[in-house]
């Protein structure tokens, strides 16, 4: 292979048109309609029941509004954030699983790439188009929840609750971005859209169902037969937690719990003596909560970038011919 001479021209040439086309394609597609309906149904159910439960709460709660997101209603056993933990990946996969290979199968890829545009711009435009679509759907859902809370609880959220809610939205979008990058990676690797969808959904199921079991099995395997010291115990617990955190779903739920439950002081393992002096049930200020979830948020964003980079490298090497 010869030395590849330096490319000239911006890698972002043509990014705008690709992004706009992807966005308008997504927003006007039937698939988007189905996904939105899906999300609303899954989101509305826990929120509706949560609101009914919350209306009966008598003790004053300074963070009543945030409870809409986090409380697990007695009748459904599914909180709003748990539902989102489950649905966001599905939406992201639905938006991304055929983004590159469908261009290939429709034979539009070589025609588009023969226009003055680098592959960089095509891939990034597609990713951003999907991410913004996802963000639009999540913001709409968030506003619906906020609005129905306003109507049914009859009191406005406080500024700090809105701020925490916005933080939650950002975490949710980053979480969606990770799964969008996963879906796009598979759409670059596999020429068949069905295979790519199957792999992305398979990975999703793996992280949701199998990974917690595998992680605890590994932890138990590493644990000594008899725990002799506190240090050993802590080490085992931390290993288990570290394994769990390889799943983006864990990062998402930890970050969301940290934001929406202001009482959360740690996302890791804590010994009773470390809790000494803490006032139980006392909420943390917003900045402290943000520091708490910072690693989770950066972890999500970093994995999104890494996955996108891998997709980019694979795409660069791919032959455009059929």
């Amino acid at each position, binding site marked *: 292979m010869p030395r590849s001479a330096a490319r000239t021209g911006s890698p972002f040439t043509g990014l705008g048109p690709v992004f*706009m086309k992807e966005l308008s394609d997504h927003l006007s597609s039937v698939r988007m309609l189905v996904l939105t309906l899906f999300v609303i149904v899954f989101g509305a159910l826990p929120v509706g029941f949560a609101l009914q439960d919350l209306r009966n709460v008598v003790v004053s709660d300074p963070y009543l509004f945030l409870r809409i997101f986090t409380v697990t209603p007695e009748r459904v056993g599914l909180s709003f954030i748990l539902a989102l933990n489950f649905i966001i990946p599905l939406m992201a996969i639905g938006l991304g699983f055929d983004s590159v290979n469908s261009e290939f199968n429709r034979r539009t890829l070589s025609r588009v790439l023969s226009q003055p*545009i*680098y592959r960089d711009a095509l891939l990034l435009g597609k990713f951003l188009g999907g991410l913004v679509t996802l963000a639009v759907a999540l913001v709409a859902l968030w506003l619906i929840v906020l609005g129905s809370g306003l109507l049914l609880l009859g009191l406005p959220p406080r500024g700090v609750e809105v701020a925490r809610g916005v933080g939650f939205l950002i975490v949710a979008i980053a979480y969606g971005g990770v799964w969008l990058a996963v879906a796009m990676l598979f759409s670059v690797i596999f020429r068949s859209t069905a295979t790519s969808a199957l792999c992305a959904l398979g990975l999703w199921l793996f992280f949701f169902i199998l990974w917690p079991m595998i992680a605890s099995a590994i932890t138990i395997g590493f644990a000594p037969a008899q725990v002799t010291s506190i240090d050993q115990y802590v080490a085992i617990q931390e290993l288990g937690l570290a394994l769990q955190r390889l799943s983006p779903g864990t990062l998402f739920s930890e970050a969301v719990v940290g934001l929406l439950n202001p009482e959360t002081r740690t996302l890791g393992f804590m010994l009773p003596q470390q809790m000494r002096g803490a006032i139980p049930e006392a909420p943390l200020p917003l900045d402290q909560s943000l520091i708490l979830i910072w690693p989770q948020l950066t972890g999500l964003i970093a994995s999104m970038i890494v996955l996108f980079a891998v997709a980019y490298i694979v795409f660069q090497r791919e032959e455009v011919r059929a």
Partner: protein
Amino acid sequence: MGNVIEARGLLKLYGSQRAVDAIDLDIHRGEIFGLLGPNGAGKTTTILMMLGLTEISGGSVQVLGFNPVSEPLEVKRRVGYLPDSVGFYDHMTARENLQYTARLLDIPRSQAGRRIMEALESVKLADVAGKRVATFSRGMRQRLGIAEIVMKQAEVAILDEPTSGLDPHATFELLEMIRGLRRAGVAVLLSSHLLDRVQSVCDRVALFNKGKIALMGTVVELANQVLGAGHPFLVEAQGTDVAVALRGVEGVQTVVPEGEGAWRVMADRDVRAAAAQRIVSAGGSLTRLADLQPSLEEVYTRYFQEARHAA
């Protein structure tokens, strides 16, 4: 004149296989150049290297003075490409598809609408501009691909198998549009394995075989090289054996019967008048005397027969 495309020792390796084996190629401004050869001979790979869509393993290529490896955007801004069985976005109309391309090309909005309509008119698709491409036939899609090149105001058009899979009428129309591109000053490079169609439009052709250019030149030059210089013609006559009648006519080299009452004559000059006289005077009734244009198909078939024998 000047060359719009210059390839020198252009090489493409897939593993140890030489898909394109160090070819030299010049395409002149304003000509229609045909890349011919069987499937897998390296035509499409050559085209993709010219567009910077696949990596070059060795040698160099210049398109309109730009290097597709280091300056792909400059090349792609000026070169129109119609891929083999081109695809468009089915859920969008013809006009919307071209609008998307226009945005990628950064054509100002004020000009885009007019250029799109003019391009669609030039390929006779103006009346279906608002229809979804999903309803288009293969021929219409190919024409839409040509419209894209027209809209782009490309200086070079590269067409990969433009007529494959089209019915005769659609092929005829498409070839007419390709001639239209040349009239507009566009240099056209087209690849094909459909020889008789290509013969009628190409100024020059290159015959690909196993990644190499086996022959290059005008169709007549190729015919002279492969079939030998000469004036072949076809005779159909009744009532006499033409092979016998033509014996002794000066210039006639061979007379080969071709079915009932038909002969194929090879001569080193135009001897048709003398041949006609001889047949009539021998008592035969002459029904046909046709000059045979050298056909590319014949060149092709003969070349590959010889190549196989040599191997």
